[in-house]
């Protein structure tokens, strides 16, 4: 019973760690910026109903996120 519980706990921990590494990993800035981008576009599209602005904003903000992360990687001691 206890063994089964610890196995389940290990499995859950491994599952959580996989998704953490997969989505956050060594680039937390991309994860955080993506959340901000998606929130902003959700506001523009769902609340503001500005379709044209959402169409332009989504890829542009993604490019800005990429630029920000690459710039961060150039700092000494990073990468």
């Amino acid at each position, binding site marked *: 019973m206890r063994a089964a519980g610890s196995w389940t706990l290990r499995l859950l921990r491994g599952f959580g760690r996989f998704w953490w590494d997969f*989505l956050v990993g060594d680039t937390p800035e991309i994860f955080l910026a993506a959340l901000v981008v998606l929130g902003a576009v959700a506001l523009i599209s769902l609340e503001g109903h500005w379709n044209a602005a959402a169409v332009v904003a989504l890829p542009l903000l993604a490019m800005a*996120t990429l630029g920000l992360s690459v710039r961060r990687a150039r700092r000494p001691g990073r990468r």
Partner: protein
Amino acid sequence: MVLASMTSSNAVVLAGAVFLASAVEMVEALTIVVAVGHTEGWRAALRGLAVGLVTLAVLVAAVGPALAHFPLVALRLVVGSVLFIFGLQWLRKAILRASGLQAKRDEDAVYRQTVASLETDAETHQRARVAFVLSFKGVFLEGLEVVIIVLTLGSSAGRLGLAVLAAIAALVVVGLAGVIVARQLSNVPENLMKMVVGVLLVSYGTFFTGEGLKVRWPGGDVALVVVAGAYGIVACLTVIGLRSSAGRHPEGATSP
């Protein structure tokens, strides 16, 4: 007629994205399996490979059909967000490697590292166990990324079957290449493939997330190609910019 050709070209883009992404991950897994096979014998390596593949197949069989019952808009939002983040990570890494700011992944180094880790375990019984675990872990972990890409791209585009076929094709091609070239996996242009896949993943991520957020893309599916082109241009310009700036301020590449 136009609609039919557009649909088939989107199918080609989807199959290409899944094929390339799967191939990149499979090359990484194959390096570990080949290293284990050469060092500890093919029995443990192939057992690890087989158990890893069966586990992944069970996962696809379990999760795949369930996704079909998920509301499409919600599925595209969740899947799009995952692809968006994952694609940006791939593209960032490919840009840093192409511009020389980060050392390229060296399959020969991974091979040597795997061999070394096996040679430190002196006892034969222990080594056989470690060899199996190494092979299984390599196949399962790299394969899990393939499974996520196949399930997310395939289900969101409503073409899960095509995505699975593309991944199987990549498995066959990489498997055959592995048999033929054996240890020369470093010759695979992995970074170029990673760059293309990164562009495609971010593009799909952008497109699906937009649809999940009720954004109406001008031109429908054609917007996907335009977005991919824009990301491709930005990625190339960034690499060129970083290379020229590195030329002005020379600095060595760090290891991954």
